[in-house]
C-alpha cells in the first residue's frame, strides 16, 4: 500500500502539488509512482524560469530499468528546482513528499482554480488502490 497524503492535490500522471506560498506550488511524484519506477537514478528537471504547462512534459525521471516523463500538474513558471536531487536522486524513493520534491512553480492563472482541476487525496486513493 502506497502512501497518499491528505492535504495535497494529485494529477492522473501521479504527480502531487502543494500550495506553499503566494501563488507558488511545490511539485513531486507520488509514493505510488516512485514504487512503480523502482530505484530512481536521475531526475532531469526544467530550468528555473522555464514556462511549464499543465499535463505537458517538463522533464524526466530515470530509474535503472525505465525512464518516464515528468508532467507538470499546473501551468506557470518554474521558480525553484530541488538541486539536492543531482547528487541524491534516491531522495525521491525515500521521501517522495518531503526531501524528494522536484520543482516549485508559480502558477500563471488563479491558484485555487488550477489546483481545483487536480484530484483530491480521496479520489487519487481510489485510482491507485
Amino acid at each position, binding site marked *: 500500500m502506497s502512501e497518499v497524503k491528505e492535504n495535497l492535490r494529485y494529477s492522473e500522471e501521479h504527480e502531487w502539488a502543494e500550495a506553499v506560498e503566494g501563488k507558488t506550488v511545490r511539485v513531486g511524484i507520488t509514493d505510488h509512482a516512485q514504487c512503480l519506477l523502482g530505484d530512481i537514478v536521475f531526475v*532531469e528537471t526544467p530550468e528555473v524560469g522555464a514556462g511549464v504547462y499543465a499535463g505537458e512534459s517538463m522533464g524526466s525521471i530515470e530509474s535503472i*530499468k525505465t*525512464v518516464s516523463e515528468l508532467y507538470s500538474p499546473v501551468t506557470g513558471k518554474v521558480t525553484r528546482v530541488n538541486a539536492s536531487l543531482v547528487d541524491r536522486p534516491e531522495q525521491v524513493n525515500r521521501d517522495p513528499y518531503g526531501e524528494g520534491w522536484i520543482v516549485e512553480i508559480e502558477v500563471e492563472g488563479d491558484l485555487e482554480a488550477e489546483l481545483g482541476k487536480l484530484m483530491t487525496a480521496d479520489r487519487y486513493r481510489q485510482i491507485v488502490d
Partner: protein
Amino acid sequence: MSKHRYLPMTEQDEAEMLKTIGVGSVQELFADIPPSIRYSGVLPISGRLDESALLKHLRGLADRNADFERHACFLGAGLYDHHLPVVVNHVISRSEFYTAYTPYQPEISQGELQAIFEFQSYICELTGMKVANASMYDGATALAEAAALASGATKRKRVVVSRAVHPEAREILMTSARGLGLQVVEVGCRDGVTDLARLAEAVDDDTAAVLVQTPNFFGGLEDIRAIEPLVHARQSLLVMSVNPMSLGLLEAPGELGADIAVGDAQPLGIPASLGGPTCGFFAVSEPLMRRIPGRIVGQTTDRDGKRGFVLTLQAREQHIRREKATSNICSNQALMALSASVYLSVMGKAGLIEVARLNVRKSHYAAGRLASVPGVTLPFGAPFFNEFVVKLPAGTDVTALNAKLLQAGFIGGYDLGSAYPELEGHVLLAVTERRTKDEIDGFVRETEACL
C-alpha cells in the same frame, strides 16, 4: 542431408522429441505457415563444401587479393598497415570473449565488463575526455552520432563540417542528417587544412556543432587552438575526430577544449580487413555524460562489497526509450574494443610514444625523398603525422601508376581526384612504422620510374 558436424540430432532423439511434442513429423511443426508462401524448391544458393574443400576454396579467394604481407602498403586514407602485436590475436581468440553475447548477466560477464571498463579508461586517458562509451561501429558512424548528440544537446539543427574530414564520414553524416532533419554545411580547405576564415563565417547562433578531423583526411594537423574559440563563441560544440595512435604525441582533444572526441581504433591492433570490422570510439565532456549514445560500463560493488562492473545509464538506450531514443545503436564492437585495449596494454606508456614517433620519422623521410623526384611536389605546408599529399607531374594517370606499383610489390596511395575534383593528380600516402627504409627507397625509385 542426413548428418552434419554441427548438428547433434540423432534419428532416435528426433523420434522421441516428436513423441513428447505430440506430432508425427517435423513438417507438422510448420503447419501454421500458409501453403501459398511456403518455399518448395531448393534455394538457389552456393552449394555445400566439406571442411577441406571449403578451406581450399577460401584460400583460393584469399590468394587472389594482394595483401600487406606480400606487398608494402603506402595506402592509408583512414585504414592503416600498422604492426599487429601477436598477443592481440591470442587474446581475442579466447572463445570466452568471442562467443559471448552482450554482458547482460553481469555475474558471469565480469571479464567482458572489466575489459570494456578498461577500454573506456584507455580512451579517456588518450583523449583527455571525462567519459567514453563502450565503442561504436566505426569512426565514421561515430562522427555522425556526434552530430546527432550535439543537435539534441544544443537544440539546434545545423552542423558545420570541414571538407578535410574523411569523405566517407561526410557521406554517412549526410545520410543520417536526412533522417534527423539536420542541415549540414561544408567548409572548404586552404593549404590542406580547414579554411579558418570561411569556418568563422559558417558558424552562427544556430550551429549545433563544428566537426573537424585531425590529422585530417589529407594527413594535415588542424590548428585546433585557433578553431576552438570560433566554435565556443557561438555556444556550439566542438567535435574532434582523431587518430588514436597520433595521440601518443599530439595534444589530447580534452586539453584543446573538445566537447566530443571520436575516432576509429583501427590503428590500435585491428587488421584493415577491407575496412571492417573496426571500432569507433566516442568520448564526451562531463555535461554530456547522460546524452552519450551506446553502451557504457560502470563500476559498482556486489552484495559482499566486492568491486564489480555493470552496464549502466541504460535509461538512455533504445530498449528502454524505444521511439524516444536519440540513437538506435544497440551493440558495440566489443571484440574490436578488446583488440584496442590489448594493443594499448602491450604498447604501454613508452611504446605508444615510440610507435607514434616512428610514424612521424618514416613519413617525413618518405615525404622528403618523394619531393626530390623531378616533377613531384608536396603541395601543402601544414604539419603532418604519418600521412601526406604529393602532387604528381601534370597528366599523370594515378590509376595506371598504382597498377604499375602493384606489379612491383607496392600498394600505392589514394587518388584524391576521385573525392576532390580539384585535387586531380594528387595522391595521399601513408607511411607507418612497418615501412622500412629499403621499402620507402624502393617505392620512391619505382614511382620515379613510372612517371
